[in-house]
């Protein structure tokens, strides 16, 4: 007993001794293991195809890819064809329809993709022979079927249509055009018209010109020996016929003489996308490129970077801010960006510009430099886990003529970057005085305050510059109430309108080959709106009866939140503008709408929703109304345009209503109006 006790005490003691661990500070790192870059092999076939092989038997799989090396193409009035050609190549061969090809790829659990500048295939090693059969069939015998091109064109055009609504996509397009110009392949924008113009021949020509072995690298990564790789390459790729591929030269885009603001006016925006950008000549693999990468990491490379700390953590202007600097074989670029609320747009630009100037003027701290190096080195080290990284190192070394030890000495060169290097590289490449300050946002709220940063130029969503109409001053003494009064007079006058107790309206629209009928019944404190197919099928029904508001969609009851109920109730009055119950309208501006001068009146409902009405300055009639809805990109407005009025018993009613929704529009035409009909109470139940 004693002995046991003694022993256990001893064990306890020794374990305590063992466990003497100082928890109060982080353990020191052990000596770092040298990071070794994996090996690759390279050889060239008779037809000029250069082959790279990364042998890695960890997994029984093989990845095969072709990378094309030609210069980017200026596409002109067929912008988008290069990308389409790349996709089209993968949609079937002369002997395999698309579905046959899909079937055979899936049958071996493989993947096979094509693009304008590459082809990629991968499968388990045991299926690699079949994979190569399919890969080379696609490479040598693409079918270029019209129906597949049509399918791709439709998808591309839908994408373009959707992106017109997307401020990020608009910003990217306009930014590219600004930095590179319309006559540079990086600055072109594909539109419906340019995509529509693309023909099968365009795609075929592209393929026939550039899919040549002397214009390509073949890369094999995975479970394959060098010997086997050679055999495979010879067997499958030596038959590939070479051809002449001419280099294409482009003028190097220049930075602007003087910084200016490029404003894309988007009246519906509640957030501005801000980009400070310009082209830079940073050669791939140069010493400058390495230093610039470290500099950019400190400026805007990650969460703890200066831009993010300033704009997000310190000022709370944005969810995130950052910057990028790229090296490229034609021309690189610098971009510093943030998405910010309308009212802080100028402040955000100011802070971005200040950070650009600060990194030029002041040396970075030792800690900042250390952290940036550690972070870059860490991600370099982690990337080596994937054998594809080694393949990309091999390809880059050959393609950009980098020193043989470029990647193996990467970490040493990173480590050698000094505080002085950062400052001198910042002075060389950070150009706050020769930048485009691109802002996609609501011009009427942000333009004026942006003038402090340079001239403000206006661009449309296709990056075409235009002269904005001078915004007209609001007439002195004019108020929203007066605008609404004029509108009511134009409708027929308060007197007549006040006598309308009930109303019944019928509209008709057609969509996707189907007729839609909308019925509206209104009575004091009650309303019903119903959209149906004219028969039993009711798409939507909105009912208000006193305090009760309900909505049914396809027979299902919908939940409506309080703020929506509030607006439905407001709008359900026979003429809501007559009494403006519980709301205060504001006259915002005089603007232009499809060529007409309009007064813009905003109504903010107490529970948070908002609507905006546009009244014709000349006739006083309402031309458009917009309801604001919250969406992923922030609040968004859904416009309803009124195209003409019809007079019934001396009162005007909207005769045509056009609802625009992304690329689709729906036109409702007035069929029938009854003023003061007898409406049974049962209608509203």
């Amino acid at each position, binding site marked *: 007993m004693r002995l046991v006790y003694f022993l256990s005490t001893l064990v306890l003691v020794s374990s305590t001794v063992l466990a003497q661990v100082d928890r109060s500070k982080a353990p020191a790192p052990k000596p770092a293991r040298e990071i070794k870059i994996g090996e690759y092999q390279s050889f060239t076939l008779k037809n000029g195809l250069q082959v790279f092989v990364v042998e890695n038997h960890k997994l029984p799989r093989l990845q095969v890819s072709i990378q094309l090396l030609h210069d980017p193409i200026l596409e002109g009035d067929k912008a988008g064809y290069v990308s389409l050609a790349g996709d089209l190549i993968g949609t079937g061969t002369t002997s395999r329809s698309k579905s046959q090809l899909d079937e055979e790829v899936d049958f*071996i659990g493989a993947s096979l993709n094509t693009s304008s500048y590459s082809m990629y295939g991968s499968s388990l090693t045991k299926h690699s022979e079949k994979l190569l059969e399919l890969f080379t069939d696609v490479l040598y015998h693409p079918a270029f079927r019209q129906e597949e091109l049509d399918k791709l064109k439709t998808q591309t055009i839908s994408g373009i249509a959707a992106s017109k609504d997307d401020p990020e996509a608009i910003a990217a397009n306009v930014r590219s055009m600004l930095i590179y110009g319309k006559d540079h392949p990086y600055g072109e924008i594909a539109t419906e018209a340019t995509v529509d113009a693309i023909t099968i021949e365009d795609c075929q020509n592209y393929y026939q010109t550039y899919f040549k072995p002397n214009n390509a690298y073949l890369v094999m990564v995975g479970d394959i020996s060098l010997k086997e790789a050679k055999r495979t390459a010879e067997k499958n790729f030596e038959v590939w016929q070479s051809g002449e591929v001419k280099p294409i030269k482009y003028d190097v885009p220049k930075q602007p003489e003087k910084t200016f603001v490029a404003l894309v006016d988007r009246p519906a925006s509640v957030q501005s996308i801000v980009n400070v950008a310009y082209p830079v000549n940073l050669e791939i693999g140069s010493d400058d490129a390495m230093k610039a990468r470290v500099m950019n990491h400190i400026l805007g490379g990650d969460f703890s970077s200066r831009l993010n700390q300033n704009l997000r953590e310190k000022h709370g202007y944005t969810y995130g801010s950052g910057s990028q600097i790229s090296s490229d074989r034609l021309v690189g670029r610098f971009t510093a960006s943030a998405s910010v609320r309308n009212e802080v747009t100028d402040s955000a630009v100011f802070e971005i510009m200040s950070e650009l100037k600060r990194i030029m003027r002041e040396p970075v701290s030792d800690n900042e430099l250390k952290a940036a190096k550690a972070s870059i080195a860490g991600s370099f080290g982690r990337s080596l886990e994937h054998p594809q990284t080694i393949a990309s190192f091999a390809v880059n070394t050959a393609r950009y003529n980098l020193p043989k030890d470029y990647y193996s000495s990467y970490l040493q060169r990173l480590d050698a970057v000094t505080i002085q290097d950062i400052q001198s590289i910042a002075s060389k490449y950070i150009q706050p005085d020769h930048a485009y300050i691109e802002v996609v946002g609501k011009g009427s709220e942000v333009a004026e305050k942006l003038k402090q940063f340079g001239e403000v130029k206006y661009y449309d969503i296709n990056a075409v510059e235009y002269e904005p109409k001078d915004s007209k001053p609001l007439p002195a003494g004019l108020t929203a109430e007066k605008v609404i009064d004029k509108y009511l007079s134009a409708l027929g006058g308060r007197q007549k309108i006040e006598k309308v107790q009930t109303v019944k309206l019928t509209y008709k629209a057609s969509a996707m080959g189907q007729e839609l009928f909308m019925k509206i019944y209104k009575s004091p404190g009650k309303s019903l709106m119903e959209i149906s197919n004219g028969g039993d099928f009711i798409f939507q029904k909105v009912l208000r009866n006193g305090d009760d508001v309900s909505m049914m969609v396809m027979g299902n009851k919908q939940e409506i939140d309080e703020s929506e109920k509030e607006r439905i109730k407001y*709008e359900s009055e026979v003429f809501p503008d007559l009494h403006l119950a519980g709301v205060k309208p504001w006259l915002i501006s005089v603007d232009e709408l499809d060529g007409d001068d309009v007064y813009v009146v905003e109504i903010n409902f107490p529970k948070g929703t908002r609507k905006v009405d546009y009244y014709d300055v000349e006739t006083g009639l309402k031309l458009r109304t917009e309801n604001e809805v919250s*969406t992923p990109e922030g609040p968004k407005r859904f416009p309803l345009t009124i195209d003409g009025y019809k007079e019934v018993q001396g009162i005007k009613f909207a005769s045509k209503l056009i609802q625009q929704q992304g690329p689709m529009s729906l036109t409702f035409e007035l069929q029938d109006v009854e003023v003061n009909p007898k409406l049974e109470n049962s209608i509203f139940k």
Partner: protein
Amino acid sequence: MKSLRRTLFAVFAVATFVAFGQAPKIEFTEYDLSNGLHVILHQDNTTPIVAVSVLYHVGSKNEDAERTGFAHFFEHLLFEGSENIKRGEFDKYITNAGGTNNANTSNDRTFYYEILPSNQLELGLWLESERMMHAKIEPEGVETQREVVKEEKRQRMDNQPYGSILTEILKHAYTVHPYRWPTIGSLDHLNKATLEEFIDFYHTYYVPENATLSIAGDINIEEAKKSIDKYFKDIKRGSKPVPRPNVIEPPQTKEVRDVVFDNIQLPAVIEAYHMPEQGTDDAYALSMLSTLLSGGQSSRMYKALVDEQKKAYAVQAFPFASEDPGLYIIFGLSNIGVPVEELEEAMNAEITKVQKELISENEFQKIRNQIESDYVQGNSSMIGIAEQLADYHVYYGDANLINTELDRYKKITREDLQRVAKKYLVPENRVVLHYLPKSAQQKPGDTQLKSDN
């Protein structure tokens, strides 16, 4: 002679390849510390990195129905610091060491990891042991993370097109099981919770006997064991058994149907069918069925709905598998102008086809090949291996399934696919949701009625 040698070589090469055609075995060592912490170690010295992970067997299903969101909230809270790590420093230790880290929460478990240069293994162990031993749960950190979680919910669910899908599915599919709420839970519950409740949750679930430490990468097993001892051995067991929910969801008997309006462009159809828990034969069969329906461009639903009929923009079938009986989800995104009813009909037609006709040998072989390919290529990163090993241990009590799970798929027959389609993919066993654009809800009206959004 020359050509004969060539042929021989080719034959030999093929033979070699077939032998290689097995997934390489993943070797690992596993053991328990005396405090109940389960340890799994996988050594691979190819690249000097190491993935350090801790899986806690606690997810949203362990939550009180009045305190939903706790498990996920902890995933945030436990980056706030510990007795020896100051607030806001947890991440800095990792980035300054050239590492990266993250965490995620499901309805069944919470998973934390760091990927570090391998000479920093002890840093990872220190950070994770601090988190397990004495994390700081203080008002300031709780307040901060409440705000962050609010933003996360806004960004990932409220502001994300289709972001509410899972929430809506769960709400409609479960009546009593804690799977009925999403892991993000209720902000209201988090607001109401007291500091003591958070502390109690920590002491209940963040205990070594409820955790699995899984490490993969450039380590030496014996040295790693010593380091693990050093940092984890002194962590005390919890004072009470770890509670496990044992709620059984009663079978659904009638189809559930609803319409949801969201900030989206393209309408969607979602069908969710109740399915058995993961690891069962039927769950494996259903998983194969999803490859048949939507794995690759030649799959039945993709080919029929996207390529041929052009009714769907995208379509996907997948088992949302979990520890307790889960859901089999089929999701279709309609092309512009295609009514959701039409899309749903076309989706259902494919299910009916599987129920009525036994699939061909050839098509079955295709699915088996696809599954084999995915499985073999699945474990290509250290963090992936660490996570898989931990999952297999916690859910099935057999970490070696990382090497043998494919055999379970191989047991499934064509008849099984037809049988599970008939058994589970029936209307009374499902929830059907139609997602429609909010702008469709805001129907056109005259200016006076313009109304309801």
